[in-house]
């Protein structure tokens, strides 16, 4: 069972929902893996406090030009949509930071002068915390293209019964990379005009990909009723509503579980999981 936690808007509570649900599932004795795919700002570790056991590089392939074979014909540069390789005087220069690793330049090179070499753009950490298997991807500072790190995370071999995938915010490539191939997507929102606007975009995204989905409304009593109205109109399942509670917010700010201050939440997150498992299997 692969469940992704996504949202259009940032700061709605994806990681709160993902980590609390993962821990609730683990406490029921299930084998659960949490994967932090928010590789530009992963923060699941703050809540799960994992002991990291291994780390490895996340790499992309970039071209390397053998100038002994190169005739400076410029086919590589003409093929590159991203201007990441250029013939400049008597040499060919590669600009790895804007290369999209498509391999087009090496494909078109008539002299076979281009080979692809790995370049590290981030790293993946693996460990466990609070009874949950933990993976996290982290993009190096200054890198612009995050999906390859997410792809490496999603390709991991895990035999866990339940995978909880914490997606980045938004509706663009990094999110799509994170949620593709999952069984269910939880869209976390808040009942504000910004939350609703971005929820609509996120719903459009999951419908376009064709993934089953439902909504969790966080801080459900702070805004207006328009988000619920929207969900009813669109026939979206509201899986859970979480009212604002100061002691829960304080626990969050200390990196603690919601159930640490309100024991009801362990049961509520287990029920959230069960309701999704039922939808997926039916």
């Amino acid at each position, binding site marked *: 069972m692969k469940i992704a936690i996504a949202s259009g808007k940032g700061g709605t509570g994806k990681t709160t929902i993902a980590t609390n649900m993962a821990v609730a599932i683990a406490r029921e004795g299930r084998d659960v893996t949490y994967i932090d795919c928010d590789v530009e700002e992963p923060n699941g570790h703050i809540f799960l406090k994992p002991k990291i056991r291994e780390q490895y590089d996340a790499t992309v392939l970039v071209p390397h030009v053998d100038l002994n074979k190169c005739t400076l014909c*410029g086919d590589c540069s003409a093929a590159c949509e*991203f*201007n990441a390789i250029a*013939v*400049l005087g008597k040499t060919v220069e590669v*600009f790895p930071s*804007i290369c999209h690793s498509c391999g087009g330049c090496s494909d078109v090179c008539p002299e076979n002068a281009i080979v692809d070499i790995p370049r590290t753009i981030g790293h993946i950490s693996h460990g466990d915390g609070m009874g949950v298997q933990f993976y996290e991807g982290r993009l190096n500072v200054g890198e612009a293209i995050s999906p390859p790190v997410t792809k490496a995370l999603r390709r991991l071999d895990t035999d866990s019964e339940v995978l909880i995938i914490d997606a980045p915010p938004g509706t663009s490539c990094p999110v799509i990379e994170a949620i593709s191939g999952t069984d269910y997507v939880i869209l976390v929102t808040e009942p504000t005009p910004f939350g609703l606007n971005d929820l609509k975009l996120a719903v459009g995204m999951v419908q376009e990909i064709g993934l089953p989905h439902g909504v969790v409304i966080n801080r459900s009593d702070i805004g207006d009723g328009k988000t619920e109205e929207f969900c009813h109109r669109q026939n979206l399942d509201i899986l859970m509503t979480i009212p604002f509670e100061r002691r829960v917010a304080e626990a969050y700010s200390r990196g603690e579980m919601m159930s640490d201050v309100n024991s009801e939440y362990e049961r509520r997150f287990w029920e959230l999981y069960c309701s999704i498992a039922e939808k997926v299997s039916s």
Partner: protein
Amino acid sequence: MRIAIASQGVEKTSAVDPRFGRASYFLVFDTSDESLEVVENNQNVNAAQGAGIQAAENIAKKNVDIVVASNYGPKAFRALEVAGIKAAIWADGTVSEAIELAINNKLKICDKANVEGHWM
């Protein structure tokens, strides 16, 4: 000496384009025969990324020694450096004034990028 001027138009009276990568044109002046060649740079004006790199490649093909514009990002500067083209800073007037200043060696030459990438 071959001098490329980032230009907003195709005449010697055209204004210098302060942008290097996304300049509308480059006018290439050759001091040996005083010829002026127009190099289109329009595929770069709307490039998503790497406009400076492509612009450097465009003028490197024309065997240029020096280019005049006023803003060079880090990748554009690197590309010019590799191509052996000097990056001169000036964008206050016309192409013919820029040529005059370049010939008389009166322009400041960059030793590093002078704007951030994607500065506009």
